[in-house]
């Protein structure tokens, strides 16, 4: 055997230890070479009489993150090439063969006749956990860092190397489906309780435990290969199955709106697979896997949510010439809801935080937010009280601006008012050092104009957090006209430190995310004014893939805020810049009826302790009422997505967005733009620019100028260009 990615040694008891330790990588990953070598090992173990069995362990801190998704992407390219030269059928046969290779390898291991044990420390996810599942014995370390799971669903895939079949044979079908749908990372104790693993031991006992199991005569037969094996939930077509499958199908639809083919394929693979023996079940799984790999949803989600997101997090937009910064101390001015949230995530990342507000009481209140969030974690058993105390000790809540001295970065999160911000900037400037970067967490005020209040505008940058800070994964970094590279690098290093995903946008009204979101909300308003039943607006928005309907979202951000933005826009840009119908609706809601949204318990919804319900009075605001059955539902979906995607295309034309990855990743993480599309630009690319422009024109003719495609889109449509073709981020970088 010639192994490069593994070490293989056999002890005096005849037990082999296979150590997975890929050279030049911090994390093991499944590649073509890994598959080839593992195949050799299985053959060797099976054939060598002196070897009793084999323990697989990692030589790294973690076990493995799973398969190399770019390898799967590569398969698609091979397929298209082959299809051209040898025809669809032969190409498909190749694709099926290649995409099922890992599954067949694991089955070979499982049925080789010698016992295999997986000894796992650290993360063991996706294809790596499927390897463990194909071993006859699985032992986990009890380390805090050990996690197992099958997260494929999160990037539009599903476990295609036996995961659906083995999990569904290890636990009740309902539990298996839930695990596969959620894709959660599972802690050792829970994994044991779920019957996913056989034992949990201290890390230094891992290999010993695995070897003991083999020595004690561990069976080389998986439970499902033993005669008389029964599925944990028994037969699919049975009274028990009737309790499982109808709700499973319904819950799939409830959770996905039938937008995620991979989730549906999980259902189908488990449903069909559980009715046949393991080998056939695996083949069925492989058939669906090959199919799902080719869906546009998987391609879009892998690109945006795995590849692009990863690249942005690793600093794709970071100016290379600025040396890496280690941020130690961050100042936050304004201890309101946003400031308190920023303080929490910073302290959670181990940074020292100075949290300043105008008096001690206000500052303490901001710090108390961290206390509350950590206490919740302690209550849920996710943190220890010592963690809470340590985190709180890192936050210095004070009214003294002098405490900001020595901060690497100061973020202001005070009231959205120019005068207030100018005052704060002046006060901060007076105490901080010359190299400290100043960031504003404004969501509405242009950064360039705020920077005028700062002596060193090149050290002034926008860092726009989303609310609630501790939950939202995106941070928008806004470059003012004079923002320098060091300010950008500092902002990016800070965002990286607090483990969020950054996008970098150029300064403009609303930046990127809010521009799209405001269009989305406006479309909801206009549909309401047209007479679309309110529930239909909200429900079709979810069908479109949005996390919440536009009316609900508006209630969350407050209608009076929307009204103020509208008035400000009108003042700055003229009456033509706002939609009269939208203005009339908001005037009625905000000015006449004082329905501000969730904050005063009444908006488009009424809020009661038992939950929220659409306000029945909305019907009276609709002068015309459309009959639900006559409404073109696809058009509602189109309008809600197109109005956002078109705005995203405008930000590209205006160079607010300079990297297409950022529009897509930012839209999904920032405001939940239909993840199955891969983001607004991927949505346009998938439809084809020409078709998208035609759709815009159709909608513009029917619903107004706001749907008029911009110049860039029309030019791209003429040339048949896509965003990822014309603005290829990897070509630009190279």
């Amino acid at each position, binding site marked *: 055997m010639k192994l490069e990615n593994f070490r293989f040694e056999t002890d005096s008891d005849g037990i082999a230890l296979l150590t997975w330790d890929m050279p030049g990588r911090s994390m093991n990953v499944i590649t073509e070479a890994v598959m080839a070598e593992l195949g050799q090992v299985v053959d060797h173990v099976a054939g060598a009489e002196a070897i009793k069995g084999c323990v697989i362990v990692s030589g790294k801190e973690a076990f493995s993150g799973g398969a190399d998704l770019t390898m799967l992407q590569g398969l698609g390219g091979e397929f298209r090439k082959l299809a051209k030269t040898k025809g669809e059928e032969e190409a498909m046969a190749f694709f099926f063969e290649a995409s099922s290779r890992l599954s067949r390898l694991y089955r070979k291991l499982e049925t080789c006749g010698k016992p295999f044990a997986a000894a796992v420390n650290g993360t063991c996810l996706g294809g790596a956990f499927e390897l463990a599942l194909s071993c006859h014995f699985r032992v986990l370390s009890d380390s805090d860092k050990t996690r197992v799971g099958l997260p494929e669903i999160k990037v539009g895939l599903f476990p295609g190397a036996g995961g659906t079949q083995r999990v569904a044979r290890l636990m009740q079908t309902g539990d298996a489906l839930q695990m596969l749908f959620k894709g959660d990372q599972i802690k050792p104790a829970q994994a044991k309780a779920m019957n996913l693993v056989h034992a949990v031991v201290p890390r230094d006992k891992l290999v010993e435990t695995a070897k003991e199991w083999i020595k004690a005569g561990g069976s080389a037969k998986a439970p499902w290969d033993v005669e008389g094996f029964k599925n944990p939930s028994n037969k699919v077509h049975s009274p028990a199955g*009737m309790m499982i499958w109808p*709700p499973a*199908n*319904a819950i799939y*639809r409830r959770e996905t709106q039938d937008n995620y083919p991979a989730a549906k394929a999980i259902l189908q693979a488990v449903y069909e697979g559980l009715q046949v023996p393991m080998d056939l079940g695996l083949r069925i799984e492989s058939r669906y896997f090959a199919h799902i790999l080719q869906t546009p949803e998987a391609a879009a989600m892998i690109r945006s949510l795995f590849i692009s997101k990863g690249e942005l997090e690793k600093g794709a937009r970071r100016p290379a010439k600025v040396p890496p910064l280690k941020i130690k101390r961050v100042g936050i001015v304004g201890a309101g809801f946003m400031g308190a949230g920023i303080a929490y995530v910073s302290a959670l990342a181990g940074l020292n935080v100075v949290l300043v507000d105008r008096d001690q009481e206000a500052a303490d209140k901001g710090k108390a937010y961290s206390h509350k969030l950590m206490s919740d974690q302690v209550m849920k058993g996710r943190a220890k009280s010592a963690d809470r105390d340590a985190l709180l000790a890192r936050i210095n809540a004070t009214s003294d601006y002098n405490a900001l001295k020595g901060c690497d970065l100061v973020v202001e999160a005070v009231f959205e008012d120019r005068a207030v911000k100018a005052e704060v900037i002046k006060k901060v400037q007076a105490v901080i050092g010359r190299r400290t970067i100043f960031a504003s967490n404004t969501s509405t005020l242009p950064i360039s104009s705020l920077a005028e209040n700062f002596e060193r505008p090149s050290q002034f940058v926008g860092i726009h957090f989303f609310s609630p800070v501790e939950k939202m994964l995106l941070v928008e970094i806004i470059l003012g006209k004079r923002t320098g590279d060091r300010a950008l690098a500092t902002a990016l290093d800070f965002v990286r430190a607090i483990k969020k995903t950054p996008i970098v946008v150029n300064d403009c009204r609303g930046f990127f995310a809010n521009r799209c979101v405001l269009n989305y909300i406006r479309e909801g308003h206009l549909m309401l004014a047209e007479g679309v039943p309110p529930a239909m607006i909200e429900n079709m928005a979810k*069908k479109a893939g949005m996390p919440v309907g536009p009316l609900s979202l508006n209630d969350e951000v407050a209608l009076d805020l929307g009204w103020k933005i509208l008035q400000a826009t009108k003042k700055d840009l003229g009456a033509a810049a706002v939609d009269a119908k939208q203005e009339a609706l908001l005037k009625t809601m905000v000015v006449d009826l004082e329905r501000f949204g969730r904050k005063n318990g009444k908006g488009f919804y009424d809020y009661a302790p038992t939950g929220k319900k659409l306000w029945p009075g909305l019907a009276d605001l609709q002068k015309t009422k459309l009959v639900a059955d006559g409404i073109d539902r696809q058009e509602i979906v189109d309008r809600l997505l197109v109005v956002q995607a078109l705005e995203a295309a405008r930000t590209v034309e205006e160079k607010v967005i300079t990297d297409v990855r950022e529009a897509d990743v930012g839209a999904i993480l920032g405001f939940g733009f239909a993840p199955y599309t891969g983001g607004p630009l991927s949505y346009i690319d998938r439809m084809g620019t020409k078709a998208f422009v035609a759709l815009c024109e159709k909608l513009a003719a029917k619903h107004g100028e706001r749907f008029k495609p911009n110049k860039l889109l029309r030019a791209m449509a003429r040339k048949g260009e896509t965003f990822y073709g014309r603005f290829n981020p990897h070509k630009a970088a190279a």
Partner: protein
Amino acid sequence: MAEAFIYDHVRTPRGKGKADGSLHEVTAVRLAETTLRAVQKRNGLDPKLVDDVVLGCVDPVGEASGDIARSAAIAAGFGESVPGIQINRFCASGLDAVAFGAAQVMAGQKDIVIGGGVESMSRVGMGASGMLPAVDPSVAIPSYFSPQGVAADLIATKYGFTRDDVDAFAVESHKRAAKAWEEGRFAKSVVPVRDVNGLTILGKDETIRPNTDMQTLGGLKASFAMMGEQGGFNAVAIQGHPEVETINHVHHAGNSSGIVDGAAAVLVGNKAAGRKAGLKPRARIRGFASLGSDLALVLTGPVDVTEKLLARTGMSIKDIDLIEINEAFSAVVLRYLQAFDLDPAKVNVNGGAIAMGHPLGATGAMILGTVIDELERRDLSTGLVTLCVAHGMGTAMIVERV
């Protein structure tokens, strides 16, 4: 094309479909045999003249398995020459069985057939044969599958029927059924189920509660609220009809069709064969139709199939004197009345399945008989029978007296 005439029909009484129901001691084949024997005997029909026995049965498993139509014909002593076929279109099976036989008569391929149906819900159990459309994701998901009770609640929500509306309809069903029995309106067609010694086991429908009122029904808890919420079905229903914000759960055991045991048989033939056998036609089959309808509403097929059938026959709803629509759930009938703006006095005049029960595979044939009897009693001409069907379908038939 030959015409198909209905020469006679009979049904068993409907016994409560539980272990304490009177027909629980009677096998499914015995129920079917009872009606076959009755329709043959009282018409002095030579069984050898029967070209086929077509029976609807929704759960043809266990004691109802293995083509119960042939089994029932053998048990009824029809002899080896009479074949049988069992069909299933869920709740409309009994009516579809008559249509199936009639179509072959009309096509000139058969002369005399018996259509009907049987269901022993107390013995075989509802759902005993499984429900693939709910189970296989490739069918359930595009079908917007939800249990029928949730679908009925969706109909009530979408079309604006309140709990009071559906309860009031149920009270009326019991009142009408009780009155019909009191006045002997079913006497002509109900044949008692007897034991081997000729002793009557059950002679009358068993689930009618003449004294039920709004107050009694008002005390019942909606049956499908928890299932709808926890099973994810409410969400599915709403995805089918997104103008609905929340499902108003109004249905319960008291305003849904009862679970019962029973069987029915309808004697169908062409003119010449009838004459030769000495039979007198009671009604002519004008036409029948089936279709698939809104999958999330599941149970609004009767509206669509009625429209389809009226168009096919060149008729208008005003041409119909009496209508029988199966009372699967109150909202099904209320929606039907609403859609055609019908006078309730023309619809289910002798009550329906809420009062008397719905022996799945048999009901279609039973209410076909009911409408013919009532047309005769009132000396009216044209009747329409329709049933909603699981998995979003509907079947209807128009008959007229001759």
